[in-house]
């Protein structure tokens, strides 16, 4: 497997979206190719930053109540106020 092909598979490799066989092939290539390893580390770093470091805001109470009122016709505190 050459670097061009490996580069195409780095994103799905990180997301565990490859077959076991292809995943193992990419793994082997990354162990011996410094250039592809750099790309892998960069993509992995961004993926982790986005999933771990990004602050998540809670929707405003007024917005939630309005949506509930106009859909299910109730704005009582319920399941939709407890999502984490």
């Amino acid at each position, binding site marked *: 497997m050459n670097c061009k092909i490996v580069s195409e598979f780095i994103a799905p490799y990180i997301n565990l*979206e490859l077959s076991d066989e292809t995943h193992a092939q990419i793994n082997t290539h990354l162990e011996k190719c410094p250039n592809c390893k750099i790309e892998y*580390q*960069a993509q992995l770093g*961004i993926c982790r930053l986005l999933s771990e470091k990004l602050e*998540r805001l809670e*929707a405003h109470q007024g*917005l939630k109540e309005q949506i509930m009122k106009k859909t*299910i016709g109730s704005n009582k505190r319920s399941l939709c106020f407890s999502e984490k």
Partner: protein
Amino acid sequence: MWKNIDEKKEAFESEALVHMDTLYNGALKLTYNEEDAKDLVQETYFKAFRFFDQFEPGTSCKAWLFKILKNTFINKYRKKAKQPEHVDYNTVEPFVEIIKDKQYFDSDSLDDSILNNYLSDEINEALSKLSYEFRMILILSDIEGFSYKEIADIMDCPIGTIRSRLSRARKLMFKLLSKYAKQEGYYREEDEE
């Protein structure tokens, strides 16, 4: 499907309304404008409720809602914004070349006043500079953790396109955030050597 309207409302509450915070965060990162984000989430939920019969039980309601959110965003908010350059998402460019290319950044759609408030951290600032297609793929994959199959369905494009677009989006983010990533321990300098 449902015996009466009360059953529909009950199902909608437990399946769809529980994702309001998630949808709101997604909407904020698409619009970078608080009022637009609120409108987008409201409109998404009104449509979702109207067409809730079309939701297939057993599938991901969050993915279904994101598809409505995306379509609503494109129809309502994206028309006025600059359309992306002619990007061939199926071509994978060398890492070094892609991060030098300015065509993938979307400076026109950025509302600076928003960044000065609640979204003024480095990651959001970088994300807001990307064009809609790249921002959306990062929201769906790396922030919300949807599978490629779900993303392909939400975005209405083949999995191969999702794969290359995601790869490109992460490289563009790395271009903008490499210093921050190193500082926060998400990328080590020695990895480059």
